Each structure stands twice: as C-alpha cells, then as structure tokens.
C-alpha cells in the first residue's frame, strides 16, 4: 500500500480509499498445496505483515516451522496453539488485507475431510473461492470435495489455482491437462464462473504480478483477478424480503420495523404485505441515522415505517404483494451435520431462519452424499461432517426461497435443545411441492416415557365391558359414506351394551387439533394425535370407531403402528369420485374452482389401501353394518364371551 500513497495527497487517498468495496473469499486446500504460502504472499506483498510480525515469523519458522530454512507462512495464519503444535489449521481463520482497489476478507479453512464443517462455515459468507491444486498431483479427491462444498454453499466464482508450476517446469501442457480434468468434473455442479490460473506461490509467480516465466498464459494474476472480479450482482435484487428483526417504539408517535434487507429493492411508497398476517400497507419512510432514503437494497440495515397501524413483531416478514416467498412448514433441505454428537431423529430442534426461531423435526433422511465421490446412500442418522438431503417439518411456517435463488432466506441453522450447540446447518431446496413430501408421525421415543400404573388392569376392564379394546378405522374420500357407517355402527354396538366412542374430523378439529390445517404436514400431525387418542381409549378397553379420510398409505401405516397392528382394523369405503361428488357437490365444486386446496382425490392423491379388513360399497351400508357386527363377534371383539 505504501507505494499507492506516495505522491498522493493523504486527503485524496482517504477519499479514494473510502470508496473501496469488499470481497470476501475462501481459500481451500491443504498446507501441502501451498495454501498458507499463497495467503502469506498476498498479505506480504500487499504490505499487510508488520515488522514485528515478520520477525516473530522468522523466529517461529526456525523453531517450529515446516519449511526448512525458508519463512513458513503457514505459521502466520495458524493462530491457535494446538494448531501450531500439530501443524494443521483446525478452525476458520479470518485474515484482512486491502489494495488500492478493494478490501479483502480471507476465510482460511482447513483442507482435510474431518474439517468439512469448517470449510462449510468459511464458504457461507464468501463470494469467491480459491481452490488450490498441486500441479504435480493434478485433480485429486480433495479438489472434488472442495469444489462440491463450494457449489453446495452457492459460491458462484471459483479460481482454480494450479500451484507449484515451478516443479513442473512451468509447462503449459500440464496446466491444460489439469484444467480439462477439472472442466469435465465440474459440469455436474452449478458454478457459473471459473477462472484457471497457473502459479507458484513459493516463487511469487502469478500471485501479485503477472509471471514472466509463463508467457503462454495470457490471463490475470491471482491478485489482479481478485481486484477486478464482479460480484455485487450476485445478490438477489428481485425478490423483496424484509425479515423484521426489531420493533422500534421510542415514543407514541414513532413505530418502526428494523431489519437488514435480505434481498430485493424497496422504495418509499411501495405497497407491502406482512407475513403471516397477510395485512397490507404502504411504506411511508425508510429511516436511517443519516436521514430518510428514497430506496434501500441488500445488505443495508434500515428501519421502515408504515401508513397503517398493523401488529408486526420480530420474525414476521415484509414482502411485495406480487412476489411472495414460499410459506410452508414442510420442506426439503441439504443438511450439514456440525456436531460431535450424532443426530437423534426424535429430537425437536430449534430452527433459526432469518430472524425467526421455532421448533423443527427431521421427518426423513432421503440420502447422504459422499463428499468425495458424490455418490448417494441411505443412512439412519447423521454423524459429524455428514451431508445429505432431508425432509423437515417446523412448528410454525417459514417464509423462504430456495437457497439457490436466495442465500439469505434459503439458509437456516438447527440448535440442539439441550446443549444449545449449533448442531446442523441447512440450505432449502424447493423441487417437490410440500404436499408430496413424506411426513413422519410415529414417535420413536415413546418407549422412554415411564408408564403410570392404574390399579385396574386392562383385563378387568375388558371383562367387565365384555369386549376387547380396538379401533375400527374407516378410510375413504370426502362424501364416500364413512361417517354414515360409523354412526350406525356406534349406535348398534352401544345399544347392545358395548362401551364405544366415535371419532371424526368434526369433533377433533374444533379442539384437540384446532391449530392444524389440511396441508399434508399438518394432516400427518393431526392423524398422529388421533392415533394416540385411540391408543389411550383402547388401553382402557374401549372400542373406537374412527372415520378419517387419511389419504396417505404411509401415514395409515404409522397410525396402525401407534395403535398396535393387532388392534387396528381397516375399512375402506370404495366409492367412485362421482358418487362422492353427488354426496358433497358444494365442496367438490369449490375445489374445481380452486377455492379449496388439499382435497384428496382432486389435488392431492388418495392411496387406495391394499391391506384392508374390508372393502365396502357405500350404497349398501345396511349390509356393511351386518358384516362388521358379525366380524366383531367372530373375532371376540364384541361380545368377547
């Protein structure tokens, strides 16, 4: 930097300097690739190492360095004592330097596979990644792993730095072969901008100044590229997302909503919609300490005031009405496990996403990705550094966009409810509709709950009632005659002296499950509660007659699992869709007009059951009733003796 200010008025220098922009980049590679040497060079040649640091470095290089008599630049970046002793970089270290054109933040991350989580951390805030390759070795497993992680975290600019060119005689052929290998590999991944640079970090060739030893190379040196690469348009300027962080209410007259703009551009006078209330208002002011602004853009931190008094709190999101994010409780994500403690599927995690925190559970692990081969495999649970695709359900809806489109609203962290450690991080993918995603409704941890012991045994109750506790589960479309059959069966059994309870949507949805809607994720939770209720009643010797559409075969199976398969008797009302329509014409007409969604058989699938006890035609419910009553007697369910 020194040379830049010589002959330049300091005032002019400062005026120019204050207009620099910022580039955050990641360096991936191991000490063997010369990564620390490269960083050391960039810092050294941009005069960012002070004399006292340099003399300490020379002293340390002799004592504990791994570079013979040369200065070991690695010692400069490996700050922690343990790292210095072991000669490896464990954590992410951030280094800072600037040139006359830009300020740089380097996230220096370790290369080994066991430090995948550290590399993911460094990549999360970087715009660009320098991936180091040893020219004598070419593209190796590590290169592929680093490239995959960089693409997973959505970094759009990669520099493939082919280092140690001095050891291959600065040979163009070697360089070209490595570039071709890399191009072949990288077509599987989404990285729009890749720059190939041959260099020798040790000799300083093509690091800061263009190399004279490689006249065949016409590109820029590493530093020239870092200074000129265009990254500001990487931000999403199209979708306005304003996750409210803090409600500012200093006095009765001022009510502002503070946040950092996650994406999109917002202007004074814009009409906005508030999620989740869906209320609408107009932006009266964009307030900052410097005064009001006409417009604001990411990543600015501002405060918005609105024309109307609307109840808005932290975690809500302001958006433009014609450009909404997904609002879902059920989604898929790529998850990276960051904790020494392995994943427990029964855990209810905290999930922090933008400014909102709620609870989340993992429904299913779709697959794990081998970071070296990119092969997919099935696993039961994640261990430290595992990466894979999962299905998640949250207690409150999240307002999100796919990570590929929006890094800010597509990312989240999972927090362990006991240790409070950040145990996993995720990037939302949005390929399947929420209603096509699987849900998990059985609780694997139910065995852990200590059971209280009633003084009355199940046998005593069943003997008194002259029956065996069980659940008759009637499934079928809306209007297929489920309830009619349930009611006449309940009446008949009751009259004959049975202790019997009828359960259906109308009785449960008004109380026990009132906060749940008809989306597939909520439907799964709803059925889980019904199943547990049935189990409680069956455990008291009571017969339950359950009338629920329960369209998903997997969920019906999990209901059977909770209730107990020997107690679960499945009846399917096999009615044609025309029959159902004629029974409930209004509901189906609404669905045809798109006013009702999530209607099984119309816009979500109804899985016809295969493993039923009975398949009935609803047109003959009197006969169906007799068949069922006969079956219960024959099985000694009622009467039992």
């Amino acid at each position, binding site marked *: 930097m020194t040379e830049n200010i010589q002959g330049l008025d300091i005032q002019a220098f400062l005026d120019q300097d204050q207009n620099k922009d910022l580039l955050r980049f990641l360096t991936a590679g191991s000490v063997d690739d010369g990564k620390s040497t490269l960083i050391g060079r960039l810092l050294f040649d941009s005069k960012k190492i002070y004399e006292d640091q340099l003399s300490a470095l020379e002293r340390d290089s002799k004592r504990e360095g791994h570079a013979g008599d040369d200065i070991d630049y690695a010692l400069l970046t490996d700050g922690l004592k343990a790292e210095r002793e072991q000669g490896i970089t464990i954590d992410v270290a951030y280094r800072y330097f*600037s040139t006359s054109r830009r300020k740089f933040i380097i996230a220096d991350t370790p290369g080994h596979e066991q430090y995948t989580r550290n590399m993911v951390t460094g990549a999360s805030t970087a715009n660009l990644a320098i991936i180091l390759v040893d020219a004598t070795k070419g593209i190796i497993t590590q290169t592929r792993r680093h490239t995959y992680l960089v693409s997973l975290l959505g970094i759009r600019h990669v520099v493939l730095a082919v280092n140690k060119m001095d050891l291959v005689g600065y040979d163009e052929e070697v360089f070209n072969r490595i570039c071709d290998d890399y191009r072949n590999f990288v077509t599987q991944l989404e990285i729009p901008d890749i720059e190939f640079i041959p260099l020798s970090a040790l000799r300083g060739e093509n690091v800061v100044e263009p190399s004279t030893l490689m006249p065949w190379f016409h590109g820029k040196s590493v530093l020239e590229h870092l200074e000129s690469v265009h990254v500001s348009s990487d931000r999403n300027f199209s979708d306005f997302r304003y996750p409210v962080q803090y409600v500012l209410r200093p006095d009765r007259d001022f009510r502002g909503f503070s946040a950092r703009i996650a994406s999109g551009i917002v202007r004074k006078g814009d009409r906005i919609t508030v999620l989740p209330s869906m209320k609408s208002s107009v932006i009266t002011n964009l307030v900052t300490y410097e005064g009001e602004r006409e417009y604001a853009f990411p990543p600015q931190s501002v405060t918005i005031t609105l024309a109307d008094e609307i109840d808005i709190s932290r975690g809500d999101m302001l958006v433009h009405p014609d450009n909404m994010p997904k609002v879902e409780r059920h989604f898929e994500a790529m998850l990276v496990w960051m904790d020494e403690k392995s994943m427990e599927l029964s855990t209810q995690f905290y999930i922090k996403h933008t400014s909102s925190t709620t609870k989340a559970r993992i429904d299913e692990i779709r697959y794990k990705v081998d970071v070296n081969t990119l092969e997919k495999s099935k696993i039961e649970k994640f261990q430290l550094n595992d990466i894979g695709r999962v299905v998640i359900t949250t207690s409150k809806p999240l307002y999100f966009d796919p990570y590929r489109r929006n*890094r800010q609203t597509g990312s989240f962290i999972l927090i362990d409810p006991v240790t409070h450690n950040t145990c996993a991080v995720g990037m939302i993918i949005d390929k399947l509709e929420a209603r096509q995603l699987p849900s998990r409704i059985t609780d694997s941890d139910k065995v852990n709950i200590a059971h209280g012991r009633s003084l009355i045994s199940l046998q005593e109750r069943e003997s008194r009632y002259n029956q065996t506790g069980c659940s008759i589960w009637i499934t079928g479309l809306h209007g297929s005659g489920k309830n009619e059959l349930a009611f006449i069966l309940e009446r008949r059994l009751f009259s004959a002296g049975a202790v019997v309870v009828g359960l259906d949507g109308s009785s449960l949805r008004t109380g026990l499950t009132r906060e749940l809607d008809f989306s597939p994720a909520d439907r799964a939770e709803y059925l889980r509660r019904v199943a547990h209720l049935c189990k409680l009643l069956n455990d008291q010797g009571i017969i339950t007659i359950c009338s629920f559409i329960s369209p998903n075969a997997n969920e019906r199976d999990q209901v059977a699992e909770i209730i107990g398969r020997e107690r679960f008797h499945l009846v399917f009302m096999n009615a044609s869709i025309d029959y159902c329509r004629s029974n409930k014409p209004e509901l189906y007409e609404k669905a045809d007009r798109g006013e009702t969604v999530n209607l099984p058989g119309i816009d979500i699938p109804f899985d016809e059951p295969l493993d039923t006890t009975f398949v009935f035609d609803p047109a003959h419910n009197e006969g169906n009733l007799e068949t069922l009553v006969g079956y219960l007697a024959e099985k000694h369910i009622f009467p039992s003796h």
Partner: protein
Amino acid sequence: MKEYSLTNLQELEAEAIHIIREVAAEFQNPVMLYSIGKDSSVMVRLAEKAFYPGKVPFPLMHIDSKWKFREMIEFRDNYAREKGWDLIVHYNEEGFRSGVGPFTHGSKVHTDIMKTQALLHGLSKYGFDAAFGGARRDEEKSRAKERIFSFRDRFHQWDPKNQRPELWDIYNAKVHKGESIRVFPLSNWTELDIWQYIRLENIPIVPLYYAKERPIVEMDGNLIMVDDDRMPEELRKKAKMRKVRFRTLGCYPLTGAVDSEADTIEKIVEEMMTVTKSERTTRVIDFDQEASMEQKKREGYF
C-alpha cells in the same frame, strides 16, 4: 449496478447494526463494554445508529482498572453526560483497596485482578447475558478465530476448540442461565477501517490519540507517560518531554506511546500506512507469556 452496491465501510456498518439489533432482540439483559478507546467509540456510534430515532436500549459499562489515563476518564464522563448514556462504571473494590497496580504487582497480576476479575465480577453482579466488545479479528492471532457471537460458560471461560459453528448471518443466541455470549460487532473491521470511519463520521476520540509534547519515561523499550505520582519517583525523575501519541489506550503504565507528529486524523492514517509495527506492540501485556492473548481470553478477558 453501481447504484445498488455498498462500499467496504457501508457494508461493515450494515453488518454491525444487524449484529447489535440481533442482540437487543434475543437477549434479556445485554450490556455494551465501553473502554473509551477508538474502537469502543465506533461501536457506540453504531449502536446509536441501530436504534435511531430511539435510544440505545441497553447500558454501557466501563471496567475501570483505576490506572487509566486521566484524560480518558475525563473524556468518558463528559461524553457520557453530553450524550445521556446509561453508563455503569465498575471496578474491583477489593483490589483497589489493597493497592493493586502494575508498578507494585507487575502487569500480569494487575491485569488479572483489575481487568479480568473486575470484568467478570461486573458481568455477574448485574446478571448480563450478553456483552458487546469492540475487539477486531485483525488485532491478534487468537482473535482471528473468534466468533461474532462467542459463547462463554458459567465461569465466563472461552473454549477455542469447542466454538459454535457460525454461518451466514444467522447467530445462535441460545444460552442456559448463567452462561453468556460475548458479541463482537467490529470483528471484520481493520485498524484502517476504524480510522476511516472516525474521520467520515466525525466521532470524538480521546486527545491522547493525537501527537503532543508529553512527559515520557523509557521503560524496557516502551515509552510510558507520567500520568500521576503513583509512578515511582525514581522513574518520574527520568521523564523527558517528547512529542508522542498513543495507538491504543489502556492502563497508563502498560501502554506505550509512539514518537509521532500526527496531530490530525489524516496524519494518523498517513502514519499508519507507513508504519512498520502492529498496534499491539504498544501493549505490554501481550508479551508477558507465550500465546498470552489466547490464555487471557480463555480465562475470560476480552
């Protein structure tokens, strides 16, 4: 696209404001540690910006080692009054009564009792669950790895090998009772960024940062200013007037001055650009043992 891009300083400012608001929203009882230095002054300005037009919704706390430069205390009291801050001044009463100081007890004992212990006691006394500090990652090697939200256990200790992963700008603020988070909104700022910001924003700083003729004693190569008569007389006698300034501020017997002609911010920056030593060389405490900053941080020091 130029219209929608930020400069380095604007981006750092937006990031810091986001961090400060996040703490105010997520914690029950946060506090901002105010050391009277240049970084603290920048941090307080950022807090004022974060909650404008409202007031900063948490108190500031100064840990007074009782050995700060007199000009620092004067600056603190005037500035706090003028700005109407909610300022807590806390010091280790027992240490003060038993006369702990760098001349009699050495820098290590003094720092431990009057700074680290005083800080921990102050945090516990008021039950703060989050404390902002003005530390920057470019200051020192072990700081380069510190999180922005840095977790401390019930004993205020830092475990550098067991830090919470921190990705994007999503900060984990979950703590159990008694545990706390140290928050560093200036993590990504460099010394030059700080000076640039002070210049652009006209932020008042303690006059000790500007060069002036001051009574100086040379001690082990450090230029120590005679600030009061607690300095032993035989040392005071050796004092000579020299034109010096301070690059960092702390306890006067532990803070070395540098020879300088820089009496304006522009000159300070110009001097910084050509200087060959890092700012922490003027801190006596960094050199009193191997990996000493990491050790102090583990024990609870900022």
